[in-house]
């Protein structure tokens, strides 16, 4: 049986950071990277730009073969993990072969969650998670005249924008009352919505698709209120679910994701997990949360890699802080931190109709909990540190809200050298 000291499953952000962290401390221990994707590593986040044609598929790869050779990493592409036999430290692959590991990292990310709507299996639809999804969608967009996007999260919104720009008539259907729910508040969402409607998209929030059926153009969608929509292109972007089917029958504890400690260790010895498939401590809550965003995948991947290699520099995971940057029709929205407003918190907002600049900051006990801006640029990384370090901003609050960019940098230059 093939043997390896470190087995890293997945080839995206969490996995790649873990590889770097392992090699930082252990330059020679055998390391195998296993991914079900046939391509070199790339980020799902870049895929909307492959769909739009802005990013050439051959230019998006995060590492090349040389990187793996130079770092003595055995790269196995197009090979899925089928079952984890943690009791005997072995990984069973889709082709039935097994790899024995000393330590394994499960960084298998997530896949689109398909809602159980009657008729969904009778129509053809697109999803967007892999490069192959993106190249298919890129080809389909060029033909589309009337497209429907189900789900107004960031994936759906990105795709919708590209469809609009490609000249299709686009309708976005979203169950929640506002779009980008969970990322941005109602005011920010309405600014985003306006940018879309100004560009000709139709947005149906608070609407639920109850039935799908094949039709002459492609698919007919029936909404809860009885109206129907025709789609020659249907994109399902209603959320993601972690890839962890391979845990069936394994003792590795999982809930909504794979449960991990502050060093990304699972409930079972020699098994770690990081990224979109992991459920780890949240910064704002006591319980464990899914924080399926790219910066957190890298952070968790690094911690897992350091823990696996026994790097004494390891620092415990501080808890996931939501971070998002969203670019739409030449505008941008940035959100850092909690979107919830706990008891006793103070919310400060400012909005300038003319420029469309919107800022919202949430404070508690003088500390920043969250900050959102539309068309108002600030350094998200600096804001995140202010939150993580629980910096008391009482003395500078008014100035901070007036100019988070300048005041954030001022604080940064004094607080972390």
């Amino acid at each position: 049986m093939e043997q390896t000291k470190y087995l890293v499953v997945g080839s995206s952000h969490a996995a790649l950071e873990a590889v770097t962290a392992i090699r930082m401390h252990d330059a020679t221990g055998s390391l195998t990277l296993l991914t079900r994707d046939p391509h070199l590593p790339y980020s799902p986040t870049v895929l909307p730009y492959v769909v739009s044609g802005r990013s050439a598929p051959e230019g998006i790869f995060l590492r090349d073969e040389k990187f793996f050779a130079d770092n003595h990493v055995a790269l196995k592409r197009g090979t899925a993990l089928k079952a984890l036999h943690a009791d005997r430290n072995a990984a069973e692959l889709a082709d039935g072969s097994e790899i024995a590991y000393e330590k394994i990292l499960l960084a298998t990310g997530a896949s689109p969650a398909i809602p159980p709507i009657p008729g969904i299996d009778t129509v053809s639809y697109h999803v967007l998670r892999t490069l192959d999804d993106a190249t298919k969608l890129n080809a389909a967009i060029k033909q589309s005249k009337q497209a429907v996007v189900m789900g107004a999260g960031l994936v759906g919104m990105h795709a919708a924008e590209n469809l609009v720009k490609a000249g299709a008539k686009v309708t976005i259907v979203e169950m929640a009352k506002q779009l980008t729910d969970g990322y941005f508040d109602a005011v920010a969402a309405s600014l985003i919505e306006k940018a879309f409607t100004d560009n000709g998209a139709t947005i149906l929030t608070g609407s639920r698709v109850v039935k799908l059926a094949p039709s002459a153009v492609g698919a007919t969608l029936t909404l809860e209120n009885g109206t129907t929509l025709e789609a020659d292109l249907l994109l399902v972007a209603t959320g993601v679910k972690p890839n962890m089917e391979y845990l069936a029958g394994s003792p590795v504890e999982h809930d909504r994701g794979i449960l991990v400690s502050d060093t990304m260790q699972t409930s079972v010895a020699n098994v770690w997990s990081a990224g979109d498939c992991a459920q780890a401590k949240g910064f704002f809550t006591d319980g464990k949360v899914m924080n399926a965003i790219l910066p957190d995948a890298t952070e968790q991947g690094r911690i897992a890699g350091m823990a696996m290699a026994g790097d004494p520099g390891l620092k415990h995971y501080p808890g996931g802080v939501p971070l998002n940057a969203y670019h739409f029709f030449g505008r941008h929205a940035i959100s850092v931190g909690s979107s919830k407003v706990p008891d006793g918190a103070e919310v400060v907002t400012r909005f300038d109709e003319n420029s469309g600049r919107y800022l919202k900051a949430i404070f508690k006990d003088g500390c920043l909990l969250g900050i959102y801006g539309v068309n108002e640029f600030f350094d998200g990384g600096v804001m995140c540190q202010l939150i993580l370090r629980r910096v008391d901003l009482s003395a500078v609050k008014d100035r901070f809200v007036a100019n988070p960019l300048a005041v954030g940098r001022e604080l940064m230059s004094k607080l972390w050298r």
Partner: protein
Amino acid sequence: MGRSYNTIAFDAAKCDGCGDCMTACATVKTGSTDKSRSRIQIVGDESDGFELALCRQCGDPKCVTVCPAAALTKNFDSGVIEWNASKCVDCLLCTVGCAYAGIALDEGVGHVAKCDMCYASPDGAPACVPACPHDALTYITTSRIYNEVGDWEDLFAPGLAGCQGCNTELLMRHTLRRVGPETVLATPPGCVPGMGSVGFNGTTGTKVPVFHPLLTNTAAMLAGIKRQYKRVGREVNALAIAGDGGASDVGFQSLSGAAERNEQILFMVVDNEGYMNTGMQRSSCTPYGAWTSTTPIGKGSGGMPSQGKTQDAKNLPLIMVNHRCEYVATASTAYMQDLYDKLDKAIQASKRGFAYLHVYSPCTTGWRFPTDQNMEVARKAVETNFVMLWEYNPKDGLEFTRPVDDPLPVTEYLKAMGRFRHLSPDQISHIQGKVVENLAFVKQMAHRQSA
């Protein structure tokens, strides 16, 4: 070996927030004078002091790891984190990843922008640095030395038994790397053999032939060896690394004789101002007022309290100038670029005749300062003019290589270490007076020679 890189250094104490650096940056990078578009951002205000928001070209960059489009990469040759406009998708995730505000949206063009140290410009140097009217920004280019030196063979054993924080290991390794394997090394009694040059258990600490002369005959023995090699037709570098005691006291006669005969050797003195290896006794290079184990602090005798050394130091490098050697220079490990330039010249000069290099070397143990302060103490010595960096050759005379026009008061140097802690105001003013006198003296020589 890891690479080291050039860097932009910022001295907050010198910055008055004028913003000329930002104007210069915006001009070359955006063609506008809009400071908000500058890649270097001065933040803060008069009352609280100014600081910098600038890409730190991290060795382990977060912005690169969170970029989904492979648009940011660390260039391991220049050290610069490069932004590829054609790959960037404007997602702004890099700005969320960076905790230093080193990459930010340039609203003028709608893309992120960051400092690239102007490395692709014709002179390869950042535009902001020369624009600063107060020298608050400096472009530090010494990385070249470390990279070059790192590529040469290290001719010392991997482990050396130096005191913690001693700069002599740096000096020994750098010098030997530069002089190269075709070298015969003499290390008379002192810290250098103590650290292991002559080896342990029957093997040497160097990968070149090394010998251990007496304190008194180093220059004479080395001169003889060099002559023998010449006689058999072999070109070698004859190098001595000696302490100040061995050179300025009992070793002086043979040193002076070799210089007078213009022997083709390179004599390096590591001046830590005393016999530090044997228990910190005073030497003729120990400065006035300094504590050593033979110039103690205490009651004294005959009603004369003992307050450290009562004589001024001998200025050995100036004495060597008066031998009209092929090359004489003073150097400091706080100024490696300067030291390197001088080492190169000294090696060349030693092929023609006698070359003498006097390196000021703060002693963590004997001078009583924290082990992480060696470079700082060395730097303060120069910044106060307590020691001066100059070089001499018979043709061009004596020239300052790092003149200090606006010296700090000598107390800035004295208070950095314990051996001067007891000084009385009178002693301090004596030392300050000597600094002024020495400076005037060397200036006069510089002037006279060049005239």
